[in-house]
């Protein structure tokens, strides 16, 4: 260790407090930087998990290759391993989707089930070649319903267009429009598999527009359904068959499957086609491999991208620029702190540097001393910072990692800690740069200190006259001590500026970050589908017919026994558009939506002299509004009426019931900072009527006539005018449970179901449930519905509880991250303020001793310090609070584009900011003064070098 390093280390040891605070500052900023970089690497890993979840874990794929080619690929030395599936055949299954008429049976090996996105929803994977799993969209899209345990006997075969054999990559060529369909064929798969198959080009060239395809039956196979799985990512949207998976054993080599058609079949000898999804030993090689193969293969774009093999995406741009901004902010905050620490250290040792220069230290050696100081503090700060950063983000992700699906990806995946070497390297790099930038400028100053200046110590006091006048108010309030403090403040403005700037920055950051947080929370909460049920089941007649009250009632009785529900309701619903006179609406509503009576109408009136005229015009104009009409199960509705004190004679009259209506507008009230409900209709009772088409009768007509009726709206034989009367409930009265979803505005009317169904037809009904354990109840209900063929698709059964949880999770995540950021940045600012103020006080030891020696009392000192504290606080807040308000306003502006909100200031944060600014300043001052007051006056007066 050379002598300069020794001097540096000893100086660091002597100024222990400042060194510790500097190191803490470095630790804080490094841990924040690490948190950002490690978070980005974890996020990238999460994106990769999601990409694998959707597309599967493979690098490249070839679809529809024959056994020979498949074997070649499997044996290639560059290929690490490959998942294999064989096309067993297509079978007609009576799908209602005319472009997807088949079930496509695919035999897959273990690796396929392991790596490909086969996500079981109910049941289990097939364990042998006579078991099968079906995709859920077979029911939801194709309308073909099976349940676990069903045995399917399928006549399977291959599709041909003329002589050309077709694969899953060739869309269905139907009877009437084979032309248009062939053109759509190929790579429009939408899930990142930018590929197609080997036969495709061939097929297009030869058969476009020739004739429809046909299915050549080859064999009969029998399968037992063991479960259902999510619509797979490897099935193109244009694929003609729903992919059913069975197990294939390629243990004896794929050649066994090569000509596996039953003997005696006319097409025996025709080979089966394979889909092969491979992983390379070196993922990078996949592009060259696919190119060289001479076949049309595909690459797993997303997976390759997120594992860092290829990077032609917005992901890197968006996330790296996001990370860049954050790191920039952190570096900005920390540089001001660390820079200050070094600047103080240098100015405190001005004399030391000068002295060393006078006995022959070169400039390089002087600079080297400061940079060595930087190295020494980062030697401790950076490793500790990185560890605490990893711990911090690790703990954070532990708590909120499972909530990230609220923003992106599947809720089955957790964003967990993934520490990549690159992330750590980036953190170290940025941390080092931060410290070095902070040290460089002060080291320049150390170099500039000339020996003679240091010996004379003449640089410190250089005051321009005329700038030292003190105000009368200061004199009155703080006396002589105040004047002294004020003069000191003015004399060394530079030293103070650092403190004021760091206080200013932390004020602005704190207030604006909390307003951002508060506005975001408002926005997300405002967008909540605030509902009063946990689970909703949308029944739509499986047979496609209209619902009957008796059926729904009996279904309801069955459903409520399936799981442990705490309450439930079922209701049919119709949404109708109705024109109502503008005069019936409240002024608030009209004003809010800026609804004025028809402009043309207004123009026709020459002179609107008095308000009565306007009312007349308004009375004549109409406004269309959508009304949701509900029919609630009679007995449940009766319970509701009794519970809320409504007259059952009036509202439950099955022959001629009055409806109960809710007509509300919800508007954001900036003063209350929440949404308030405002009545939408003036009167307490209203009557509407609307025209309903009798679809059942109309459907019996030929299409052209039916079309005519729809367009003309005239033929009253097919159109019923339905009048509805209803009473408007009070603003705060709730609808029957399940119907209270929050909406911006609207009218909802409830009737008993049998009355509703006597007036209108519908094919659907919704069952609303609440449960103490919504997740369990959901699963039980799902199982029951699937087993009984009542589960049509993933939209049949909605776990609202889970969805609301998603929204709440989003708020939690936003809060955790923004408050974490605020707290850490504030801590950095705090360390900064502490360092500057305490050093400033220490540097004035001699001055204080002098004042004491000429008789200044403790009280006098306190007055002087108080005045200084107030100067610091007021100066920083005078600039900081308006700046923070400006930022808040900008935040409001950008948020209000997307969400309804009113401008308000985060007063509680302002109070906290003001309070903490003064608390920090005063406590630091008191801390330093206490140390100084222990000094002996004469000793301090003697201080000359240090």
């Amino acid at each position, binding site marked *: 260790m050379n002598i300069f390093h020794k001097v540096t280390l000893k100086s660091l040891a002597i100024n222990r407090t400042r060194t510790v605070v500097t190191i803490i500052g470095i630790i804080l900023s490094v841990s924040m930087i690490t948190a950002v970089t490690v978070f980005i690497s974890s996020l990238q890993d999460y994106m990769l998990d999601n990409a694998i979840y959707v597309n599967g874990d493979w690098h490249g794929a070839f679809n529809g290759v024959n056994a020979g080619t498949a074997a070649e690929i499997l044996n290639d030395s560059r290929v690490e391993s490959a998942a294999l599936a064989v096309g067993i055949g297509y079978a007609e299954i009576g799908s209602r989707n005319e472009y997807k008429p088949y079930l496509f049976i695919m035999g897959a090996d273990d690796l396929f089930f392991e790596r490909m996105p086969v996500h079981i929803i109910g049941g289990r994977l097939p364990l042998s070649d006579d078991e099968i799993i079906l995709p859920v969209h077979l029911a939801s899209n194709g309308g073909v319903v099976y349940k676990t345990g069903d045995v399917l006997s399928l006549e399977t075969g291959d599709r041909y267009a003329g002589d050309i054999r077709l694969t899953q990559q060739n869309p269905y060529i139907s009877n009437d429009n084979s032309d248009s369909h062939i053109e759509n064929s190929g790579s429009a798969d939408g899930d990142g598999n930018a590929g197609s198959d080997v036969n495709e080009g061939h097929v297009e060239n030869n058969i476009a527009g020739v004739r429809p395809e046909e299915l050549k039956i080859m064999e009969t196979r029998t399968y037992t359904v063991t479960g259902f799985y999510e619509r797979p990512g490897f099935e193109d949207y244009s694929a003609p068959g729903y992919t059913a998976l069975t197990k294939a054993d390629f243990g004896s080599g794929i050649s066994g499957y090569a000509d596996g058609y039953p003997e005696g079949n006319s097409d025996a000898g025709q080979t089966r086609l394979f889909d092969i999804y491979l992983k390379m030993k070196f993922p990078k090689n996949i592009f060259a491999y696919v190119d060289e193969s001479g076949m049309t293969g595909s690459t797993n774009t997303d997976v390759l991208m997120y594992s860092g093999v290829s990077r032609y995406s917005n992901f890197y741009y968006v996330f790296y620029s996001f990370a860049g901004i954050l790191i920039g902010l952190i570096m900005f905050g920390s540089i001001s702190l660390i820079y200050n620490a070094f600047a103080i250290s240098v100015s405190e040792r001005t004399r030391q540097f000068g002295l060393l220069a*006078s006995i022959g230290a*070169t*400039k390089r050696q002087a600079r080297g001393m400061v940079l060595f100081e930087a190295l020494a503090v980062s030697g401790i700060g950076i490793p500790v910072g990185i560890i605490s950063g990893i711990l911090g983000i690790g703990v954070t992700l532990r708590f909120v990692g499972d909530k990230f699906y609220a923003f992106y990806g599947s809720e089955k995946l957790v964003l967990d800690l993934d520490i990549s070497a690159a992330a750590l390297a980036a953190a170290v790099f940025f941390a080092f740069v931060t410290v070095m930038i902070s040290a460089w400028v002060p080291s320049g100053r150390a170099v500039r200190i000339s020996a003679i200046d240091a010996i004379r110590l003449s640089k410190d006091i250089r005051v321009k006259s005329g700038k030292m006048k003190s105000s009368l108010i200061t004199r009155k309030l703080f006396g002589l001590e105040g004047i002294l403090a004020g003069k000191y403040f003015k004399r060394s403005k530079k030293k103070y500026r650092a403190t004021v700037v760091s206080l200013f920055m932390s004020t602005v950051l704190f207030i604006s970050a909390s307003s951002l947080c508060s506005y975001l929370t408002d926005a997300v909460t405002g967008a909540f589908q605030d509902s009063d049920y946990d689970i909703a089941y949308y029944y739509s007649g499986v047979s496609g017919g209209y619902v009957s009250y008796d059926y729904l009632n009996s279904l309801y009785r069955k459903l409520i026994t399936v799981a442990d529900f705490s309450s439930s309701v079922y209701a049919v619903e119709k949404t109708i558009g109705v024109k109502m006179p503008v005069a019936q609406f409240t002024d608030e509503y009209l004003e809010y939506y800026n609804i004025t009576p028809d402009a043309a109408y207004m123009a026709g009136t020459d002179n609107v002299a008095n308000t009565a005229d306007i009312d007349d015009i308004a009375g004549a104009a109409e406004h269309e509004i959508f009304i949701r009409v509900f029919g609630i199960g009679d007995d449940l509705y009766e319970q509701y009426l009794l519970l809320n004190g409504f007259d059952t004679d009036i509202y439950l009259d099955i022959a001629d019931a009055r409806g109960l209506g809710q007509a509300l507008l919800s508007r954001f009230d900036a003063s209350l900072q929440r949404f308030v409900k405002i009545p939408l209709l003036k009167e307490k009772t209203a009557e509407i009527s609307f025209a309903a088409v009798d679809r059942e009768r109309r459907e019996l007509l030929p299409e052209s006539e039916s079309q005519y009726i729809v367009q003309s709206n005239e033929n009253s034989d097919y159109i019923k005018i339905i009048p509805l009367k209803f009473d408007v409930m009070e603003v705060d009265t709730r609808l029957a449970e399940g119907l209270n979803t929050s909406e911006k505005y609207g009218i909802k009317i409830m009737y008993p179901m049998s009355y509703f169904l006597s007036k209108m037809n519908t094919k659907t009904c919704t069952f609303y449930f609440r449960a103490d354990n919504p997740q369990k109840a959901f699963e039980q209900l799902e199982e029951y519905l699937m087993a009984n063929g009542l589960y049509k698709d993933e939209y049949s059964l909605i776990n609202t509880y889970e969805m609301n949880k998603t929204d709440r999770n989003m708020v939690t995540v936003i809060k955790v991250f923004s408050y974490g950021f605020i707290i850490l940045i504030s801590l950095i600012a705090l360390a900064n303020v502490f360092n500057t103020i305490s050093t400033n006080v220490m540097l004035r030891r001699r001055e204080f001793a002098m004042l004491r020696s000429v008789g200044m009392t403790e009280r006098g000192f306190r007055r002087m310090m108080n005045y200084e504290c107030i100067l610091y606080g007021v100066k920083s807040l005078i600039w900081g609070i308006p700046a923070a308000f400006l930022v808040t306003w900008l935040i409001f502006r950008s948020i209000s584009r997307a969400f309804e909100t009113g401008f308000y200031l985060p007063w509680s944060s302002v109070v906290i900011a003001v309070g903490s600014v003064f608390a920090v300043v005063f406590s630091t001052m008191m801390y330093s003064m206490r140390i100084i007051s222990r000094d002996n006056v004469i000793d301090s007066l003697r201080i000359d*070098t240090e």
Partner: protein
Amino acid sequence: MEILRVEKLTKIYGKGESEVRALDGVSFCAEQGEFIAIIGPSGSGKSTLLHIIGGVDRPTSGAVYMNDRDVYAQNEDQLAIFRRRQVGLIYQFYNLIPVLDVMENITLPVLMDGRKINAERFDELIKTLGLKGREKHLPNQLSGGQQQRVSIGRALMNAPAVVLADEPTGNLDSKNSQEIVELLKLSNRRYNQTIIIITHDENIALQAKRIIAIEDGRITRDEVMRK
């Protein structure tokens, strides 16, 4: 042998009305082994002259030659090395590095050079200075006289061409002052070292071989007292 030549040194502080001529055309030569005392009232330019000779301050005009080398024709780094090897500076307020011990303070110029310490020379020096046994003490553990002896040690460690002392006894009592002067005389005799000392103390000045008096930045008297 001429070791130092000062030619028409001028140093001007400030501009216009507030212009101060600290040095106004000072010229003199010094032979190796001379012991020169510079005397003069406060503000006469003594210290400025000494600092310019020592390479820590720059003259407004004029030149300083040491061993026939133009001191201020060197760049900053060369100047630093010059200070390190050719000059030993002693101040009134010792100016020791408080975090370094006696040994480190004395050997600082050698350490800065990155050279090895000549143990023999250091031993001899510390015995001469009467600091034996105090090598590991920090400056604040020493008396004023001891501290000044440390700073003399530092100035002599590299055996520089010229030792410049700026009122080295200004802060000491008469006993300590005499000891310091004896040390300087000893080094002058034993190593044939050229010594230039600024002093207010007539007693000390009279012990020098040559006295230069300065007033208002000019040499008013330059007489050789003894050979």
